[in-house]
């Protein structure tokens, strides 16, 4: 068999199915959970820990919990006391927005989906028209939330709760991507002034904690504005959060730009595409694709940072929670309250993370 043979084979071997043990559930289990001694030990330890944790959590959250009552003194159970939700849910969601007008916030929230979805995926019926709707959405939402055009005016200092987190977070997300792109391109510009400005902005903003930026925003922003213009504090927060996130965004995208081989630039140049067209059609689509994990990471960070609005006197969902746990009626319920708040953030951030994974998979399929 091992000796060289002078003859070529005359008959090719037929393809066979793989051995049973490598496919199906058993194959999967064996390959992933019990492939070696250490892997098997890890699997068993994990099963043991989960078997302790899951029943305890379910018990605390659901089985031994209580949902009725007017103060914490009505809660007589071992588990969680959810009695405050009934009273306080409105504040957690809407802050001090007048109860009779909260339907407007709900409508603005519902309209958010047709405004966002056409940008997140392909093949939606009427996608082109929906995108025009998206462009109009910020105006529609502003009118719905703040009033005007026959709707009762609601001053923005009444905005609060999770609604405030969503407003600041989504505005920051939508604005920081384009600003980040411009800064990233600016940082690579051949024109020194543009390059220096971009580098200066990125380094200055990145080098300072967001909380500091928020504190100084009422000193900093008026420098760039005409003297008689005063900014609403929510607008101020959105500007600062956007500036902060776009500095990180710029660096993430710069990484993506550096991953594009120089041949792509050359091919675009050789075809006669000008700078903006080659960026828009050739370079950025590829650079952004490479940067998706970093971009989403920045989005998630930004969204969680919206809780910092508390330092300029706004009450987001966390601010409301802080206020509630120091209220004598509900004193001591901090675990319940913060778990509840965490669930909101987790839902949004986890959705973003899953979306980005789905998007990466879809784009990868397209390539190969």
């Amino acid at each position, binding site marked *: 068999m091992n000796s060289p043979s002078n003859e070529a084979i005359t008959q090719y071997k037929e393809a066979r199915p793989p051995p049973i043990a490598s496919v199906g559930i058993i194959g999967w289990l064996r390959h992933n959970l019990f492939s070696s001694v250490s892997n098997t030990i890890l699997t068993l330890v994990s099963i043991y820990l989960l078997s302790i944790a899951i029943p305890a959590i379910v018990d605390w959250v659901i089985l031994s919990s209580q949902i009725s009552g007017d103060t914490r003194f009505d809660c007589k159970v071992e588990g969680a006391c959810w009695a405050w939700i009934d009273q306080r849910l409105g504040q957690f969601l809407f802050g001090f927005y007048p109860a009779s007008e909260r339907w407007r916030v709900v409508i603005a929230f519902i309209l958010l989906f047709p405004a966002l979805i056409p940008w997140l995926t392909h093949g939606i019926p009427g996608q082109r028209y929906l995108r025009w709707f998206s462009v109009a959405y910020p105006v529609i939402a502003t009118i719905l939330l703040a009033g005007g055009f026959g709707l009762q005016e609601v001053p923005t200092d009444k905005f609060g709760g999770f609604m405030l987190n969503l407003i600041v977070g989504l505005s920051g997300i939508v604005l920081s991507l384009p600003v980040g792109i411009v800064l990233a391109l600016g940082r690579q510009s051949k024109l020194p002034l543009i390059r220096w400005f971009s580098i200066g902005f990125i380094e200055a903003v990145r080098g300072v904690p967001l909380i500091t930026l928020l504190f100084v925003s009422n000193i900093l922003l008026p420098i760039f504005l005409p003297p008689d213009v005063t900014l609403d504090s929510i607008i101020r927060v959105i500007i600062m959060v956007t500036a902060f996130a776009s500095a990180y965004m710029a660096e993430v995208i710069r990484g993506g730009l550096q991953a594009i*081989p120089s*041949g*792509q630039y*050359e*091919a675009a*140049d*050789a*075809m*006669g*595409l*000008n700078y903006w*067209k080659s960026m828009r*059609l*050739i370079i950025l*689509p*590829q650079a952004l*694709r490479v940067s998706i994990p970093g971009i989403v990471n920045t989005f998630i960070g930004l969204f969680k940072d919206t809780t910092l609005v508390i330092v300029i006197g706004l009450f987001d969902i966390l601010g409301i929670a802080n206020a509630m746990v120091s209220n004598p009626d509900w004193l001591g319920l901090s675990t319940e309250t913060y778990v509840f708040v965490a669930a909101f953030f987790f839902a949004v951030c986890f959705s973003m993370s899953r979306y980005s994974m789905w998007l990466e998979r879809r784009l990868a399929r*397209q*390539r*190969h």
Partner: protein
Amino acid sequence: MDKRKINNPDNHARVIEIEGLNKWFGSFHVLRDISLSVDQGEKIVICGPSGSGKSTLIRCVNFLEEHQEGQITVDGLELTGDLKNIDAVRREVGMVFQSFNLFPHLSVIENCTLAPIWVRKTPQAEAEELAMEYLDRVKIPEQAHKYPGQLSGGQQQRVAIARSLCMKPKIMLFDEPTSALDPEMIKEVLDVMVDLADSGMTMLVVTHEMGFAAQVADQIIFMDEGQIVEQNTPTEFFDNPRSDRTKLFLSQILSH
């Protein structure tokens, strides 16, 4: 030399005129006093050892590289820093690269229609028709809706050629178009190039495929250390190389 003059009487347009071209990368003198003129329909093959400045020379023709001294005139337009001329020249000059440089995020047909649509303002339907025509010509119409990553190297290079042709260029530049290919794919690309040569395209080709050079070139240029060492018709070039450097080069590349 003489053959070209006979084949190209004076009424044939001069499409590229290079005079006294000098270029430096930093302090490195990469192109030294290059003069070269190319008539419409002429095919010029450029060969020479690696690092001799072949790529740099043809990249100067569409201003991917900026020169410091001398004049380059393409289709009557002089290449200076003037962006308008550069754009105009790039519309008339197609380029095929060693590493294909297809756009991986676009399908084959989108690669081909991009420049016609965005640079020439061709309507999309017309651009697609044109693209299919050229994909047909490079013999891969059936791959039109695949992505570059799904094609073999030879197929990718043929798409790259079709993509350039979709701009209906007057001049085509090739920078070692077959050097990155597996041996069995070189022929399919060369066949397409021979076809293109037969159709009367003006071509500047950097290549070491001497069979191709012998078949289609009007002139072969041998470069070394940033200079044109020798320029001749294929017959003279192969049978009667003048410089020792050329002889050595030919013996090296023809021996395998």
